[in-house]
């Protein structure tokens, strides 16, 4: 089973079209293995990106260097999945 330890989901909310263009370019970087949960559509719509742990530093540097505002929506994806699994098992019992 694939695990997501240390992966984070970043939420970008920007009002600048040029940021949206940059986020689209970022999506094309296959080596970063980014998973766009909510794709860059247009300003003022949130963009959510699951960033694998090894890609966190370069992605955050990219965002900060371009002045793209973001927050960490999910600190650790695996922790959330573990909680979800535990809740399902509890309910099943």
């Amino acid at each position, binding site marked *: 089973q694939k695990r997501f330890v240390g992966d984070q989901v970043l939420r970008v909310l920007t009002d600048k079209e040029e940021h949206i263009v940059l986020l689209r370019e970022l999506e094309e970087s296959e080596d970063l293995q980014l998973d766009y949960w909510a794709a860059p559509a247009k300003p003022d719509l949130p963009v959510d990106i699951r960033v694998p742990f090894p890609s966190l530093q370069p992605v955050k540097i990219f965002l900060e260097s371009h002045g793209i505002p973001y927050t960490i*929506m999910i600190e650790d994806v695996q922790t959330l999945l573990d909680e979800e699994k535990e809740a399902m098992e509890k309910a099943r019992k």
Partner: protein
Amino acid sequence: LERSSSGFDFSTYHTIEEIYSWMDDLVAQHPNLVSKIQIGESYEKRPLYVLKFSTGRTAKTHRPAIWIDTGIHSREWITQATGVWTANKIATEYGKDASLTAILTSMDIFLEIVTNPDGFAYTHSQNRMWRKTRSINAGSSCKGVDPNRNWDAGFGGPGASNNPCSETYHGPHPFSESETKSIADFILGHGNVMAAISIHSYSQMLMFPYGYKDEPAPDHQELDDLAKEAVDALAAVHGTRYTYGSTMHTIYQADGITIDWTYDNGVKYSYTFELRDTGRYGFLLPASQIIPTAEETWPALTKIMDHVHKHPY
């Protein structure tokens, strides 16, 4: 906890086996209203089940019908869970809710709860983040097609990807996926589907055609007015605010999507929901959100269904 008489817990997430088993229970509990039909099978040979809610047992021709599907993107578990809750709600409210009862007196409702069963099973067993189908792509190590880019409506346009490794890969050709082809065949074969509602998560939106082109749909104003009524009804339950409009103008260009195909094939009332976004969990919405999400979606659904019932075409 909200439980059915069979002990099924609606406030938790379930595997495909549990949902399929519960569907049989629902049919057994409401034999005069609910039946289960199989419209095809998935790439990995899982049955594609649809619940049929009907009170018209003797009709020689198909009665006007409403199609609802949930969970075509397998990882958006809140949608399948909402589908389960909604199926139960339809079954238990028939005969009590005047509007729903009137609808079911002359119309049928078809509800496909697990629209992408291979992907859904995969989210439970191997990869919780899986969104697409599980078909093999020739010449690529990446599996799966985005079933909401695989319909024959603007297929292959810029609002989809031609990269098999992308989450929005449109597939080699329209309806390459049995999961979409089976629905299309069913709707065309039925011939009297008046509304199609495809439920996704998460963005808190209610959208209608088009996603593949900029121009307004011929029924734009009516669809827009009805969308406003629906999102107002939704917001009245827990205060959740939705945006609404055509897909192209509400979110982005999306080519080959379900509701554009249904609309282009004569289903005037074609809508797609994006359920709750709390801004904290994305599509990993905790199970505690299932009931509130389903509860608020219900009046929006009934608003659309009631309008369809009262505006035959």
